[in-house]
């Protein structure tokens, strides 16, 4: 059975283990690019209210399906060998890892581009929602227009925020 490309899980992940597994898939790999998103302890340039914790909700089924489609699209657009996305759900604490993307290619350029493409795509098209707990109460995180603009650079209309 091929290694899974997408995992949605409550448990933490180990980036080094994930990369090691991804690199093993193809010995032509000469570049690995990865991104890890983590929980900020405060927003608005650290001037916002402290974030005490974060709850992540998702749409089981659609989440996996949408990210699989994004990886397929990354393979069509870039000369990459493999890609892996792990995204956590449930209750997270400041500084916790939220998610990771890792991509392999022969040379760095394609990995860098594909990694950023997958992040831009996921931010506005994968059905996850964050709710932050602050001293003033819980609030759903607002989608950002800058994330829509980031995806539009790749010629894809985001239509999210």
């Amino acid at each position, binding site marked *: 059975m091929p290694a899974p490309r997408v995992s949605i899980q409550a448990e933490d992940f180990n980036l080094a283990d994930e990369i090691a597994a991804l690199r093993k898939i193809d010995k032509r790999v000469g570049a690995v690019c990865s991104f890890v998103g983590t929980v900020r302890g405060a927003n608005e340039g650290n001037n916002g209210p402290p974030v005490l914790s974060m709850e992540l909700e998702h749409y089981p089924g*659609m989440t996996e399906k949408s990210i699989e489609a994004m990886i397929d699209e990354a393979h069509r657009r870039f000369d990459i060998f493999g890609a892996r996305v792990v995204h956590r759900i449930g209750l997270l604490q400041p500084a916790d890892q*939220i998610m990771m993307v890792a991509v392999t290619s022969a040379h760095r350029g394609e990995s860098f581009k594909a990694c950023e493409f997958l992040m831009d795509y996921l*931010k506005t098209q*994968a059905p996850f*929602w*964050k709710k932050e707990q602050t001293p003033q109460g819980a609030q*759903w995180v*607002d989608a950002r227009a800058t994330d829509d603009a980031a995806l539009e650079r790749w010629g894809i209309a985001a*239509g999210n925020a």
Partner: protein
Amino acid sequence: MKVSVKYFASVREALGKGAETFDTSAPTLDALRDELIARGDAYAQALARGKSVRMAIDQVMSDGKAALTEGSEVAFFPPVTGG
């Protein structure tokens, strides 16, 4: 036709439920949204036109013109914020 409808995040909280199944004659997502808005109260507020609500049919992001079919799985939710 019978459709199953799912709600997530702030929409789910506003409606106090995450899913329901019912019969509808709405041909499109927009028509189904209007039918739900017509129920009034929490539905009218959570799904109000002009409010940022995203929609999916059979787990694919879709716009309001997308057609419903028997057994469609429809979802209404706020803009996504993962990553």
